[in-house]
């Protein structure tokens, strides 16, 4: 029935101006504020602005030396300079694909000796030149770059200097939230700045990070560098409105709008935001600015017709490289000679960088071949070296004579609690982990009893909290991330797959990412197609993840400890069907360690090798026992570690060398099976050892249906295991005779 009368509920008129919102303020410099700013600070701001401009100009003019795109920050220098000068040295920033300005500003202010005053200094201090040169060399893809040439322009990191950039729009924002979380947990009173563009306010990572930062009142400054375009798309098209500071209102978060062409105004805004962030929680700064060039490369945006030359002229008249020094002179704070000196110093700095890594030839400027990284070193830093030196008694797998059996669930809870107890940098985060007496599966019960302050229940934002864990891990914290169900990893693929496993490599193999993700395989619970995956394969195809799927309580302890000790990203899987199984712990108890590359011989046999782990192993053992009565001798090996780098190849080849037959058993649906990967790990040595084709037993190739008989049918079935083992063993025996 149509409503005939006027609606009783009135919709409030939208389209308010940003300043109508009580949480938003415009930053106006007070009269005299410029003059009240220390001259050295103003000189540094001018130096940073010029250094960025000279640096970017040189790169654009020599774009043929840069392999890949150059997202120039020309026009946005004042935002970075003002931001960095308001920070403490130990503060952190994350930035974007357009980050040269942010990185230079942060590293210059980080490296500058306290007596460096650009208006009087005869030369640039060596640490500043070193920091700028390493950034310059990285963008050129050189070994001496910040990341050994692996990251280049869009993936820059120097954890000590406090910079990290991501090429994925929004990717760095949750990371900054995590760095702020680290500051808060450690009580450093530091802040993290997430610098990002207007386009990033459309993506979930921004909203998840803002939610997390506000929920936990983290010391984050969301620095929105509003240059008004996502490539060629305007704010009208991407947001429907133009004053993006309004976004902060939805988080009940204060916001400041500032002239991003004025470094002193940005400095004032950042200083105020910093104080608020440390005391109370996150602040958003919208800095209004403009990129003078197109998305990347040396052409203006107008060449692509998405904006006018008039608009570009308007912003060119506000150029901080010209306006800021003129203001300093006009205010009587600097002489003409002084501002010229600062510019010369910046030019000399970039000239020195160029001279350090290029040579002039008759054909133009060239980079000597010797400066590029060696291809012999191309795998450097994908993973760390493993668990390091572990005391032999912690590796002893023999259960003590008086050992008490514990359940798998108690092992999970116990070893997590043990880590939080022994490592002040360790913490757990995930949905509900701090509630319900130990999370939805009771696995943080132990940790909640001893260190509840480091068991953090998150909002429902997997990409946000996975990214936060990553950011904290980059600073040496030791997060344990709980994904309530494995399939929820798909919510966080940007952080879990496009950031975490790549970080160690793309940032030059220098920065550890000590982070564990644990989740529970939930097949067989009637949770259906969207909760029922075994995610081992998903993580295994991204080098940089280690993956382990412990089969027993004792193994869970040993493998979880190894996962934490490697200081690499590790996925640790458990399975609800294992939770009530019991095993006796070795003498080291909750400190027992099973390093990567250590398979376990579960059962010795002659006729066929079966590789199985987790729930699949539990299913294979009784089948093997039964077949033993029929004269079939089955060898079972649990690889424990499933990723290529951690897989115990030698143990598998040794076993197959003796039996000549191989069956891989797992419960995953066929397309999510590890079996194909495992066979690939064993090539080319596997096939000469086999007397019959390797067989794989998996679940049916459908997502888990809810109906109980259907779900039971599509998962691993004992008759399939038995048939495969018999077929392989028989063919193997025939081949042998």
């Amino acid at each position, binding site marked *: 029935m149509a409503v005939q009368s006027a609606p009783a509920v009135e919709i409030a008129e939208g389209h308010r101006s940003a300043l109508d919102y009580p949480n938003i303020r415009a930053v106006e410099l007070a009269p005299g504020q410029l003059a009240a700013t220390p001259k050295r600070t103003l000189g540094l701001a001018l130096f940073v602005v010029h250094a960025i401009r000279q640096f970017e100009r040189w790169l654009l003019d020599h774009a043929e030396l840069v392999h890949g795109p*150059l997202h120039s920050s020309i026009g946005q220098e004042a935002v970075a300079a003002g931001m960095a000068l308001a920070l403490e040295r130990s503060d952190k920033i994350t930035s974007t694909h357009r980050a040269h300005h942010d990185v230079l500003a942060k590293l210059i202010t980080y490296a500058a000796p306290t007596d460096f005053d650009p208006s009087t200094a005869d030369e640039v201090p060596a640490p500043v030149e070193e920091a700028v040169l390493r950034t310059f060399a990285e963008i050129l893809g050189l070994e001496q770059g910040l990341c050994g040439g692996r990251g280049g322009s869009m993936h820059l990191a120097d954890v000590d200097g406090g910079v990290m950039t991501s090429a994925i729009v929004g990717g760095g924002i949750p990371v900054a939230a995590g760095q702020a979380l680290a500051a808060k947990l450690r009580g450093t009173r530091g802040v993290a700045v997430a610098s990002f563009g207007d386009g990033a306010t459309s993506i979930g990572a921004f909203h998840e990070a803002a939610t997390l930062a506000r929920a936990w009142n983290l010391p984050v400054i969301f620095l929105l560098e509003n240059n008004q375009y996502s490539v060629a798309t305007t704010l009208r098209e991407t947001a429907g409105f133009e004053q993006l500071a309004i976004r902060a209102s939805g988080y009940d978060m204060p916001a400041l709008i500032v002239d991003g062409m004025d470094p002193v105004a940005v400095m004032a805004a950042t200083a105020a935001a910093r104080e608020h962030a440390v005391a109370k929680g996150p602040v958003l700064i919208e800095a209004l600015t403009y990129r003078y060039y197109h998305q990347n490369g040396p052409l203006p945006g107008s060449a692509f*017709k998405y904006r006018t030359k008039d608009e570009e002229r308007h912003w060119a008249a506000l150029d901080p490289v010209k306006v800021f020094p003129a203001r300093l002179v006009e205010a009587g704070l600097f002489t003409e000679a002084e501002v010229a000196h600062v510019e010369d110093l910046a030019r000399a700095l970039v000239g020195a960088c160029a001279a350090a890594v290029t040579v002039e030839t008759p054909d133009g400027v060239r980079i000597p071949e010797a400066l590029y990284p060696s291809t012999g070193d191309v795998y450097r830093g994908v993973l760390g070296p493993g668990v390091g030196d572990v005391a032999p008694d912690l590796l002893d797998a023999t259960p003590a004579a008086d050992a008490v059996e514990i359940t798998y669930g108690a092992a999970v809870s116990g070893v997590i609690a043990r880590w939080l107890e022994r490592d002040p940098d360790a913490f757990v985060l995930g949905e509900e982990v701090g509630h319900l007496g130990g999370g939805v599966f009771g696995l943080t019960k132990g940790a909640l009893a001893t260190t509840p302050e480091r068991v953090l229940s998150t909002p429902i934002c997997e990409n946000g909290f996975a990214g936060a864990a990553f950011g904290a891990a980059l600073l040496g914290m030791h997060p344990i991330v709980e994904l309530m169900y494995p399939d929820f990893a798909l919510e966080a693929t940007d952080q879990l797959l496009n950031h975490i496993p790549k970080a160690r490599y793309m940032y030059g193999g220098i920065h550890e990412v000590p982070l564990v993700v644990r989740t529970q395989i939930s097949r067989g619970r009637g949770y259906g197609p969207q909760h029922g995956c075994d995610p081992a394969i998903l993580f295994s195809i991204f080098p940089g993840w280690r993956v382990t799927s412990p089969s027993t309580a004792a193994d869970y302890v040993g493998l979880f400890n190894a996962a934490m000790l490697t200081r690499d990203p590790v996925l640790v899987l458990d399975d609800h069907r294992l939770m009530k199984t019991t095993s006796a712990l070795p003498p080291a108890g909750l400190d027992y360690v099973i390093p990567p590359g250590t398979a376990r011989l579960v059962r010795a046999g002659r006729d066929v090798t079966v590789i199985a782990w987790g729930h699949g192993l539990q299913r294979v053992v009784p089948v093997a026992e039964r077949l033993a009565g029929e004269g079939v001798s089955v060898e079972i090996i649990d690889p424990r570690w499933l990723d290529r780098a951690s897989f115990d190849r030698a143990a598998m080849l040794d076993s197959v060398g003796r039996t000549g037959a191989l069956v891989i058993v797992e419960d995953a649906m066929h397309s999510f099976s590890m079996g194909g990967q495992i066979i690939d790990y064993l090539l080319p040595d596997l096939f000469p050892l086999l007397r019959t084709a390797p067989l794989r037993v998996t679940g049916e190739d459908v997502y888990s249906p809810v109906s109980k008989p259907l779900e039971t049918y599509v998962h691993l079935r004992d008759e399939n295991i038995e048939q495969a083992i018999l077929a392989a063993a028989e063919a193997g025996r025939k081949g042998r005779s």
Partner: protein
Amino acid sequence: MSTTRLRVPNLGAEATGGRMIAWLRAVGDEVAAGEVVAELETEKATVELEAPVTGRIIEILQPAGAEVPVGETLALIEHD
């Protein structure tokens, strides 16, 4: 007097060259440094080519319509 070449500038990752669409100045014209003297078109962009120096155009080597790679000399400008 010396001569400076007007070349197809670096066009970034967007293009390795383009097509001359118009000469706004002719042989014999006096031009100022920074003045737009020609237009070039890439697949995505229209690029204004500026005189690199103040002087006089003495030769145009690539007429409108010509396909030109980055670095190609388009004109010669004579100057002090």
